[in-house]
């Protein structure tokens, strides 16, 4: 989910950039040099996951999975998502340079929120894990679309209807991201629980 260049007003772009810088700075501070490769290659996986298209009836949508990235990386999701978005704009011209800050906040802030809201409940029981995974995926998209709507609304009050349309259009995406994230988290916990452990595993 991203906003293209040329839509948002100056103040919104600048506020987005400032928040993105702050989030990225905190995220970078939390990554030590033993862990940076991990964050980088998970960011590559996040980039590739966005190329996965799933069917929704006759149409299709690509996965976003910022919820998973949040669960796996916490605050480090900020630099990871910033990196992936920058590469997306270089390769595909999705988003772009001036909107990079806003787009990073739109994707990464919900990821961080999901980390703190739902991770503590994951792993208590298989059912709880799936439900919390589902909520993580859904909430991440819900928050993202709300943030995107806000960015539009702050740009021009006339964008109000457009903002509503953005949020409504993302409703099916929320459900699908919820389902996929739920299954994905359950899968990860089964085959490779270290990746999702709350204390940072010492990958050695």
């Amino acid at each position, binding site marked *: 989910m991203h906003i*293209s*260049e*040329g*839509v948002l007003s*100056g103040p919104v*772009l600048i506020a987005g950039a400032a928040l993105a810088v702050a989030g*990225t*700075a905190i995220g*970078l501070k939390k*990554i030590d*040099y*033993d862990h*940076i*490769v*991990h*964050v*980088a*290659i*998970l*960011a*590559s*996986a996040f*980039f*590739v*996951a966005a*190329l996965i298209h*799933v*069917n929704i*009836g006759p149409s299709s949508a690509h996965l976003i*999975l910022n919820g*998973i990235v949040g669960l*796996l990386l916490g605050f480090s999701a900020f*630099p*990871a998502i*910033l*990196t992936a978005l*920058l590469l997306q*704009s*270089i*390769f595909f*011209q999705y988003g*772009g*340079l*001036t909107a990079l800050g806003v787009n990073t906040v739109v994707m990464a802030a919900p990821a961080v929120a999901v980390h703190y809201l739902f991770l503590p409940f994951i792993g208590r029981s298989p059912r709880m894990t799936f439900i919390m995974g589902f909520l993580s995926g859904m909430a991440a998209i819900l928050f993202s679309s709300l943030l995107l709507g806000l960015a539009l609304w702050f740009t*021009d009050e*006339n964008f109000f*209807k457009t903002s509503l*349309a953005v949020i409504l259009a993302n409703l099916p995406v929320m459900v699908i991201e919820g*389902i*996929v*994230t739920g*299954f*994905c*988290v359950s*899968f*990860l916990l089964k*085959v*490779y629980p*270290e990746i999702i452990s709350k204390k940072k595993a010492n*990958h050695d």
Partner: protein
Amino acid sequence: MIEEPFAQGTSFIHNMEPRIKILAAFALSLAASLCSHFSIIRVYLLISVILVTAARLNFGALAKRLKPLFLFLSMIWFILPLTFEGRVLYHYGRIRITEPGILLSAMITFKSITIVLVFTALVATMTVASLGNGLHRLHLPDKLVFLLLMCYRYIAVIEEEYNRLLRAAKFRGFIPRTDLHSYKTFACLAGMLFVRASLRAQRVHKAMLCRGFNGKFHTLDVFLPNRFNSIFLRAIVCMSLGLFIYEQIWF
């Protein structure tokens, strides 16, 4: 496979130092995004067209690159004139097309095309390796540059792994549909990507330790200082700043 169709070339823009191109792209796109008058945005658009022409980009690849943008713009032209409040230009029953909606759509069209062209001409004309080098020399945090280069390096590797996994699933009769089974399958595929990414990260980290990695990351400078670079940068920055100030005072 990700492609960088514009990264290789022989134009003077391709030969410029990454640092200069990043700064120039940043100044121009920021100024353009802050602009709000048609007479000014036209100048930016002209500059961006000149830059793209100077970079001698492949036209087909450029058109392909602009496709998502045009899809987005057609959506804008469909939604904004109908939803914005203001002087009604035309109405049919309850459907009204407003002047502010049309004007804003036109403005967004100008701006986004300008910024995308600037980005393509100045940033997409270098490899990500050069971009990382440039950002490093602009004193962005080491860790961030490192993250960018590593992430870039392993995208192709992980994409190949994804294609292999998907192929294997299809060989075993998996047909993507709109049902829970399909979503579960894709969830496992995505999960597998994250698992493999994490395992690979451990191996890469080991390989780095084997080669004496000690927390310091190096990029190699391959660009010589060149007077033309600084003239170009000054020209672009002065132009952007000039237009910005002119717009603030005059309008």
